[in-house]
């Protein structure tokens, strides 16, 4: 039985927040793409991996982590645009399973390509010197970089919320995920909106990747387990619900953190148990809408 001091528990909650932050970034991207395009993007984990590797390359070239932090997600988003344009768009109108299957194949390819380009071992990313130490939070010392991750996630989410709620483009996106037919009928080029959304969604995955890099290193397989966990987060939150993705991501981050603390052997399986329980009582997840992809 671990030391149950309040300090240890509080440190645990913060750790759960960091994990939750990464989950939220990934889940929101997946949910955006799914909600609007009904596409289940199985390559999301591989794009997260690319974010970490692009970050590595950019840090090497520019010498600055912060520059890389901005550029890497943009590069991954740009790559996402190419994927949408050339690989996913040809599949519209066909079985809804097709984009899922295609992106599954894409994930295999991307992992292999990463191995071929950057080697089989994996690479190390260093947090910037400014964030290398630890901060005294009162009840414990917590690594500064991890606090930074929490902060960045919060800022990006607020930015995304503002974008969706307060801009015209955001309005169209929200309308499009509710009723794509109507939006088309009103004369909007839904194709361009989907293009943009896929880019944003994948860019978020890339951001999650470069944020995670300094904590865990970058290696070709890093996206393989996290894609499954991200799907669990999205399903729990409800496919297509962004708020659901945020709540679910934070919740599951805490659950994993606390399980690791109290019952480490269950840490791997707890997300699935939790998901099964949620789905038992709420058939479409916490905030999902019935009828989407059924």
């Amino acid at each position, binding site marked *: 039985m671990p030391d149950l*001091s309040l300090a240890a528990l509080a440190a645990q909650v913060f750790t759960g927040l960091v994990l939750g932050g990464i989950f939220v970034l990934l889940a929101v991207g997946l949910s955006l793409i799914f909600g609007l395009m009904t596409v289940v993007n199985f390559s999301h984990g591989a794009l997260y991996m690319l974010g970490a590797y692009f970050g590595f390359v950019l840090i090497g070239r520019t010498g600055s982590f912060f520059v890389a932090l901005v550029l890497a997600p943009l590069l991954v988003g740009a790559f996402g645009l190419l994927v949408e344009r050339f690989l996913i768009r040809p599949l519209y109108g066909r079985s809804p399973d097709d984009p899922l299957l295609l992106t599954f194949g894409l994930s295999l390819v991307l992992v292999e390509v990463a*191995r071929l380009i950057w080697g089989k*071992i994996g690479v190390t990313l260093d947090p910037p010197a400014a964030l290398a130490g630890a901060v005294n939070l009162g009840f414990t010392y917590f*690594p500064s970089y991890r606090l930074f991750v929490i902060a960045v996630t919060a800022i990006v989410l607020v930015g995304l919320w503002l974008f969706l709620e307060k801009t015209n483009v955001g309005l169209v996106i929200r309308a499009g995920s509710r009723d794509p037919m109507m939006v088309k009928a009103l004369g909007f080029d839904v194709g361009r909106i989907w293009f943009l959304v896929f880019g944003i969604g994948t860019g978020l995955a890339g951001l999650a990747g470069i944020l995670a890099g300094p*904590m865990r*290193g970058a*290696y070709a397989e890093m996206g393989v387990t996290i894609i499954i966990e991200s799907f669990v987060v999205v399903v729990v939150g409800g496919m297509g619900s962004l708020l659901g993705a945020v709540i679910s991501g934070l919740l599951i981050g805490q659950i994993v953190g606390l399980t*690791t603390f109290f019952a*480490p052997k269950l840490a791997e399986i707890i997300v699935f148990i939790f998901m099964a329980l949620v789905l038992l009582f709420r058939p479409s997840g916490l905030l999902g809408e019935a009828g989407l992809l059924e």
Partner: protein
Amino acid sequence: MNRRVFLTTTAAGAATFAFPAVLRAQSKDPVRIGFPLPMTGPFAAIAADMKQGAELGIDVLNAKGGILGRKVELLVRDDQLKPQVGAQRTQELIEKENCQFIIGGLAAHVQMAINEQTKKAKVLFISTSQSDEISAKPDTSPVTFHEALNPTITSRVVGKWVMDNLGKKWWIVYADYAWGKQNNMVLTETNKKLGGTVLGNTPYPLGSAEFSAHLPKIQAAKPEVLVHVTPGADDIAFLKQVKSFGMHQQMKLAKPLHWISIAKQGGPELYQDVYGGTNFYWEMQDSIPEAKKYVEAFQKKFAIPPGDYGVYAYSAVLEVARGAELAKATDGEKVADALRKNPTYNHVKGKQWWRACDNKSFQDMWILKGRAPGKTKGEWGLLDTVARVAANEEYDRTCAEKGHTA
């Protein structure tokens, strides 16, 4: 056709059938050694070193005329670190490619799946990575040989050294799978036997890379030594997180095995002052003549110094040859008998020998320590040799403990 022609043709035909059989008996068909390895996956770098070690061994053999006057060929296959694939590749190597010998495996579970196939076919198998079970009943067989160290030996050796030199109050973090659990168990036993205390044992799911959940608790317990059984990339993630919490200044860090490729990937900043065991390190060329020959030949052929696990493969290839020459045959059971009757050898790191009851190789181990940045010797001189521990059958389980009643 008339009867005479028929008889002559048949006789000629029969002779033609008999002739190749005669030829085959003296044939110069190559001797083939099959080598399943995880060329893809998280341990691919170690696998690459093993492939190179084996290739160097093949070169050495062919330069001397091969095995029993026949050329030696190495057939490497990717087992993807998966037992089914390893088993399938082994079947392919035996059935389709007619390999007379199999070496390999880099992962206990894959080795055992490979072993199941070689046992059935009675083909000699020399296993080249860690496993406690492969040399014990019921997995082992008369044609199953184990060249590499195993968790019992590794953790007894390293555990004892850490107790004697670094501290007696430990906390152990270990990956929750067979290798991790075995090392954890042996380390704990060794600590207790020598009068120490283990303040805690923390399992984590292999590959999870998320340790910060455990670290505050460990820090609060104040162990003298933090022992981490964290293979591959997990170790790098672990050390990063440990250092970010400042723990390296409060306690010593030790692990059962150092891998040079992982130390290189992590870098001297991360591996500074981290202790670990090994079966081989290229700087040993300074003290062991066989090692010097190996390192020089390896460097010449591949332009980089050899790693640790490659030595297992090199040794295995040479042992296959030695056994075949002694037995004057390539039949698995005959070669196995020959090796058991002539168990001592020294190809690269000093004296090694096969124990008769379980075909287990005993060999020296070394304790290494990460050098500080700035003190490294070139790109690969990342580790300092701190101690040498001579081989001793007491470091492994006894024959009886492994189920051998002979």
